[in-house]
């Protein structure tokens, strides 16, 4: 029984009652608003497409829209200062990274082959195949669908050989990952309506510990290697020493960092200052790092919304990159959904892919939200950031 003299009992009572009243009184007040929010979210996705098409029309700036994966400029136009080091050119990263991916390969592939090479595939065998997909964090729903589809097709086409089944599975996975998505970064300088030239603005968001700051650092090196002038904005004003970390990354390739002089400053104002300084100095790309936040913290997500709004007052955002840890499980989908609603994510950076985790969650994310994975982080080295290759990713999943 609740003792009315006990603070606990009273607190319990009051909160439950209050919750109830709030629920009753607010629930269905103007439900149409909900729909509007949805619309806003889907609108947030659309402009990216419009920009992309608009970009091809404006051929004058087209050359500047350097997509990382086709960046074949042989060597970076080395940065000025002598003490500044030159990042490795993007081309040629692949072979090295491929080797690393193969090294971290799990016994998944071997298991899969073992299952597939049985004469007739029983229900248990199919279950086993499903479990193998689940092990890669693909998620229960997609894995089930995939196996069902595969099963039907194998029966219809009466495919029997292990190699063929495997090839079919691979084909289906590649289709799921969407090989035809636009994975280039939109780095073209923006010409506003009044003719002023603004830098391309990249906003990097994500949950705590996903590797945002490191990604910003690595991305900066890529951009410098491509001969772009870069300015960093340290809008992570919360985590101790985050701005220091970013500044160090920048200093090494001769890139300046705009930061607040005190901890806990308004991140939106730091981001705004960065973009403003960037456009005043005629910089090509401004990259803004934000503090990690869990997607269910309403207050922090509002703060992020403010950051993106305030940046928009100075120059429109070119890209909003969500950094997703490859070890993340099914929660990754929630993360992508909420961050897209709040900040209009345009692409995903999958980090820590060099461990044993396969990052299968991006399959679901791409499928459900249509967000392309644009970059992958493959290790601790400063130049271990590479463009995402669907086929290669699938091979990783299947443990080539």
């Amino acid at each position, binding site marked *: 029984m609740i003792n009315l003299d006990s603070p606990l009992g009273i607190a319990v009572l009051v909160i439950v009652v209050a919750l109830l009243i709030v629920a009753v009184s607010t629930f269905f007040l*103007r439900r149409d608003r909900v729909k509007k929010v949805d619309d806003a979210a889907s609108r947030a996705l659309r402009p990216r497409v419009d920009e992309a098409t608009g970009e091809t029309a404006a051929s004058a700036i087209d050359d500047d829209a350097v997509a990382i994966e086709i960046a074949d400029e042989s060597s970076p136009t080395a940065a000025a200062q002598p003490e500044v080091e030159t990042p490795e050119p993007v081309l040629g990263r692949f072979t090295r990274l491929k080797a690393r991916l193969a090294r971290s390969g799990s016994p998944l592939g071997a298991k899969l082959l073992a299952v597939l090479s049985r004469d007739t595939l029983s229900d248990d065998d199919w279950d086993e195949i499903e479990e193998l997909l689940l092990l890669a964090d693909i998620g229960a729903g997609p894995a089930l669908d995939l196996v069902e589809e595969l099963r039907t097709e194998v029966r219809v086409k009466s495919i029997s050989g292990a190699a063929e089944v495997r090839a079919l599975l691979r084909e289906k996975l590649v289709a799921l990952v969407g090989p035809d998505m636009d994975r280039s970064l939109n780095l073209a300088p923006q010409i506003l309506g009044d003719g002023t030239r603004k830098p391309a603005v990249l906003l990097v968001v994500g949950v705590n*510990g996903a590797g945002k700051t490191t990604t910003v650092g690595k991305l900066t090196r890529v951009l410098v290697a491509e001969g772009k002038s870069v300015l960093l904005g340290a809008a992570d004003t919360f985590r101790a020493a985050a701005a220091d970390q970013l500044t160090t990354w920048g200093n090494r390739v001769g890139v300046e960092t705009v930061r607040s002089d005190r901890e806990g400053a308004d991140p939106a104002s730091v981001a705004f200052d960065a973009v403003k300084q960037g456009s005043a100095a005629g910089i090509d790309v401004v990259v803004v790092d934000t503090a990690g936040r869990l997607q269910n913290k*309403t207050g922090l997500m509002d703060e992020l919304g403010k950051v993106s709004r305030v940046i928009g007052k100075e120059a429109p955002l070119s890209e909003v990159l969500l950094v997703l840890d490859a070890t993340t499980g099914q929660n990754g989908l929630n993360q992508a959904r909420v961050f897209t609603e709040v900040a209009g994510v345009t692409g995903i950076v999958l980090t820590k892919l060099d461990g044993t985790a396969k990052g299968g969650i991006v399959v679901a994310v791409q499928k459900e939200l249509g967000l392309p994975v644009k970059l992958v982080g493959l290790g601790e080295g400063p130049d271990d950031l590479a463009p995402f290759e669907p086929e290669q990713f699938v091979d990783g999943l299947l443990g080539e």
Partner: protein
Amino acid sequence: MFATLSDRLTSTFKNLRTKGRLSESDIDATVRQIRRALLDADVAVPVVREFTGNVRERALSAEVSAALNPAQQVVKIVNDELVGILGGQSRSLQFAKNPPTVIMLAGLQGAGKTTLAGKLARHLKESGHTPLLVAADLQRPNAVTQLSVVADRAGVPVYAPHPGVASEAEVPTGDPVAVARDGVEQARAKLHDVVIIDTAGRLGVDQELMRQAADIKAATNPDEVLFVIDAMVGQDAVTTAQAFLEGVDFTGVVLSKLDGDARGGAALSVASVTGRPIMFASTGEQLTDFEAFHPDRMASRILDMGDILSLIEQAEKAFDAEEAAKMASKITSGDGFTLEDFLGQMQQLRKLGSMKKMLGMLPGVGQMREAIDNFDEREIDRVEAIISSMTPHERRDPKILNGSRRARIARGSGVTTTDVNQLLTRFESARKMMKQMGKTGGLPGMGGVPGMGALPGSGKRAGARQASKGKKNKAAQRRASVQSMKAAKKAAQAQQQGAQPASGDGFGLGANASGPASVEDLNLPPDLEKYLRG
């Protein structure tokens, strides 16, 4: 679409009501749903396989067929097994006989070790220890700086002889093993009784770093090695945990980022695969957001059932006891509760965080899930705006609100008069309802609350769902709310009886004894009953 295990099982059991007995195929269907729920919660595949195997076996056994209500029994088995694995060997930190006690932290990059070091230090300091933090993460750029800042916030000294690296490409020069060893020496010399060693984050596959961690362990001979793992982690949890178990043979697990909305199946995976107890949970960005791990709550969370205990705890933190008492008496009388009080309550509730999340924590709200999902938090802003546009007199006595006053309020808060009217109607009916409950024993001391017994059956529940679509059928919706409230109260009462003794020692160094028991018989039944009626 079934959002939760509760919803799924409800639908699975719907057909069972007439049978009264579970056939083998019924159990198979049930087990499939459980499997799916566990996979959605990121529990590792091998663990799921073993777990569902156990559940199936027990469900087929005499235990169930002899039970009065087999369906209920199955859910109880699931919960039992979960709590068993999660909290089977719950224990507190072990302190060394001869100080200093050495605690080493290990885990993947980005798991939250450095932050946790600060939290643990603060916690230990509050319980009368004199911890020393040792910065042995010489790998990550500025990790040492971060630890110093965190230590500063926690008011704990830090031993950081080496500045660490300032950038990713700089080759780490310091010897973390030496730093750790010296740190322990330092603590002995300066009479600190606990040493917390923050080590570099590493990937499970990184042999070199793992050896370094093993070396640190060998050099300092820690009393506790805590493995920090992110609650969001997916299937990789098992691989990682095994790698760390081999590498540093950790003695306990800390679950971090539990304040997110991940269901945290990783906890189950790690506990089940390694057999090491989960000792703490890290639940926020502030240094105070650190608590003992509650296996029972985690079980409900993995199964996505309500979590009334956490809700109550959060409420306790945010609510002023005296004010709450005043409010309670007002609610009891029913009449005294004004819009002004309502506004105050709402503002305090908001301090607790997302309204959506809190509503979700109430057990038995499954049938309203769709409505909750569609709930826009900004509705509350609107309600606040409407009330703020009233004069104090109007707030105290809404009866005086005539047409022109309503029009003024609507203008002032940027809504239509209809909205104002709606708010007033709802408020009035909510108030009446509370008064009613005060009379009929919906309040403390009520002996005969039927718990969830009076839950609307499936037909009515469908009605409640429709209500969420339109604005009609408010009654059904309200009924659903009443049910959740009653359930919550029942759980609260139980909490009062069961967990009150434990709530004092806060940090659960040993407080777990009462935990599982209380939820077992208290938190679960309301949910259970639902399956039967589904």
